[in-house]
């Protein structure tokens, strides 16, 4: 029998129907929905006069467009309130479980799926959000879809897709001190560019990847979409199984044993071929920072921003003008105004612990606004239980309530025009954090270091 990649194994076992010269109908195990990309899908169902085919396989939360303070009060912005209320009504009408505002399980959709044990190896998972790729850290096929596709899944629990090509990205060797998985992924994107993996589904592997915690693996898979990939995945191993075990919706007893036996088969066969492969050395990676207006425009924090050479650099010129930065210059010491620690990339308990460790007993720079938005109610509760809220509060960081927040600036958490924000989120597009906002993507450590000094800082100088 032909050797298969992990991706092939999962994909092939979910194909319901093959259209000649066309896409395949893929069965979807888990579907997550949120308030922003689902209302038009429900409206579509209504106009077709049909219901949700398998409501128990869809889970909803409110995250993209919710306030991060006073979540117990009615949402002030009328449009946002209407959108969140529409989700509640739709879930009631169609029989879908909703972890809405105030629910102890509420949070960013890609944070709650894993932490509740809903996300598991071997599954197909979709959500109307591109960072659905996050879930791939558990060894499943997870990808973002558009609203018409949300409607397809609600109506039939299937989606029509063309099978993507396969790519292997290997990272080997020990990580240097102060270098996090966020740096790994920003480094890879800076090498492969934002369209480098288009049309592909990526499997990340190698000793560096295997050594990472689940939280750190999620950060990498989360940003696989920023390389243009359809999604990213990491083969499940003992770290994965240990993370899932005992979580709210994780299988138990005999069912656990049965599923575990299956999960243990989920790896790429020796000799299986990928359409494209890349390999990187962990020792080449230093803490990263972005200088431009897409996530591929990143450099090691001690290195200069690329210099503009000639006409073909129109994109670079445009980006640097937007960012108010000069080509060829080093970013260390560049003054910043905001620090945003949050988003589905870096808002998990491990991220908050790392930040708290670094800032314990210190104070943020006076001119910096430092926001920490936990990924979920559970992360928030855990942070309080561990006393992180005190450490962060004393250092001048504001710990808020969960949601997407300034990652996309849909609610009132925006970065003002022209201000610099070191952000642990995943996108530094023009205006992403608010019209005119200047985003610099970095790891939670690099972001926290910038909050303390008020400027771009090499966090390694602050670590022992």
């Amino acid at each position, binding site marked *: 029998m032909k050797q298969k990649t992990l991706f092939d194994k999962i994909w092939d*076992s979910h194909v*319901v*129907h093959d*259209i000649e*010269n*066309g*896409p395949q*109908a893929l*069965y979807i195990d888990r579907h997550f929905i949120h308030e*922003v*990309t689902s*209302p*038009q899908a429900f*409206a579509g169902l209504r106009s*077709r006069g*049909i219901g949700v085919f398998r409501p128990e396989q869809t889970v909803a939360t409110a995250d*993209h*467009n919710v306030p991060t303070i006073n979540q117990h009060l009615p949402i002030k*912005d009328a*449009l*946002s309130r*209407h*959108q969140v209320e529409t989700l509640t009504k739709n879930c009631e009408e169609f029989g879908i479980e909703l972890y809405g505002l105030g629910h102890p399980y509420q949070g960013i959709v890609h944070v709650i799926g894993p932490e509740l044990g809903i996300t598991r190896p*071997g599954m197909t998972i979709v959500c*109307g*959000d*591109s960072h659905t790729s996050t879930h791939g850290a558990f060894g499943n096929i997870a990808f*973002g*879809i*558009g*609203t*018409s*596709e949300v*409607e*397809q899944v609600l*109506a*039939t*629990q*299937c*989606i*029509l897709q063309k099978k993507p090509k396969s790519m292997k990205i290997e990272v080997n060797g020990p990580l240097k001190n102060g270098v996090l998985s966020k740096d790994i992924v920003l480094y890879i994107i800076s090498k492969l560019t*934002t*369209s480098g993996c*288009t*049309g592909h589904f990526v499997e990340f592997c190698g000793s560096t990847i295997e050594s990472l915690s689940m939280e750190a693996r999620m950060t990498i898979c989360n940003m696989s979409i920023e390389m*243009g990939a*359809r999604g990213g995945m990491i083969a499940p191993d003992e770290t994965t199984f240990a993370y899932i075990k005992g979580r709210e919706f994780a299988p138990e007893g005999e069912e656990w044993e049965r599923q575990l036996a*299956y999960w243990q088969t989920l790896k790429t066969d020796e000799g299986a071929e990928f359409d494209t492969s890349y390999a990187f050395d962990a020792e080449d990676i230093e803490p990263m920072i972005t200088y431009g207006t*897409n996530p591929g425009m990143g450099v090691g924090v001690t290195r200069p921003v690329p210099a503009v050479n000639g006409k073909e650099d129109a*994109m670079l010129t445009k980006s640097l003008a937007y960012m108010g930065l000069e080509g060829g210059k080093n970013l260390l010491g560049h003054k910043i105004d905001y620090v945003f620690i949050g988003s589905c990339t870096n808002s998990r308990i491990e991220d908050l612990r790392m930040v708290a460790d670094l800032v314990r007993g210190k104070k943020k720079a006076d001119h910096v606004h430092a926001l920490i938005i936990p990924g979920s109610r559970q992360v928030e509760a855990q942070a309080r239980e561990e006393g992180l809220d005190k450490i962060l509060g004393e250092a001048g960081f504001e710990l808020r309530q969960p949601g997407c927040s300034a990652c*996309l*600036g*849909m609610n009132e958490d925006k970065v003002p*025009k022209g201000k610099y924000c070191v952000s642990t989120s995943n*996108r530094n*597009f*023009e*205006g*992403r954090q608010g*019209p005119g906002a200047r985003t610099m993507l970095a790891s939670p450590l690099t972001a926290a270091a910038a909050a303390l000094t008020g400027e771009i800082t090499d966090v390694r100088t602050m670590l022992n």
Partner: protein
Amino acid sequence: MEKFKTLTSTCVPMPFQDVDTDQIIPARFLKATTREGFGDNLFCDWRFDENGEPKSDFVLNDPTYQGQVLVAGRNFGCGSSREHAAWAISDYGFRVVVSSFFADIFKNNALNNGLLPVQVSEEFLQQLFDAIGKDPETEVTVNLEEEEISIPSAGVSESFEINAYKKYCLQNGYDDIDFLISKKDEIESFEKERTI
């Protein structure tokens, strides 16, 4: 969904690379719960200044360039999966986007909404930009049946690829949900037979 056969139109050129969906429709406009009306905010931050006044240097505000075909640089539609981007482009009145490369999710979203993404070579794209630059009245013809795009005045054409199934859907105004619903029996037997 509206049927698509052939289209001949003048073009609106946007020669930037990596146009992401946050530019096409910024997140603050995603609060709507219907599909209509997004065209008003298409490319909002490039199109209007802080006071909501049209910026004269942006192509959509330049009456010289009109038409149902948007011509853009490489890697169009990257970033967020928001289908609102495809709705905004359609709602504004475009029926075709021409680029040398499209981001995956955008391409699917466009096709699901009767907006045809036509992927051409870098050379063809450059020829098209040049032709429009010389004469804003330059027309292109997009023939879905023949899978061909041409610039009649320049006498050049190129074929483009489209998946046979998607082509059938576009030509007939038929969508994926209609198709999947017709396969309900297969879906149910798949569910019964699976062991994991």
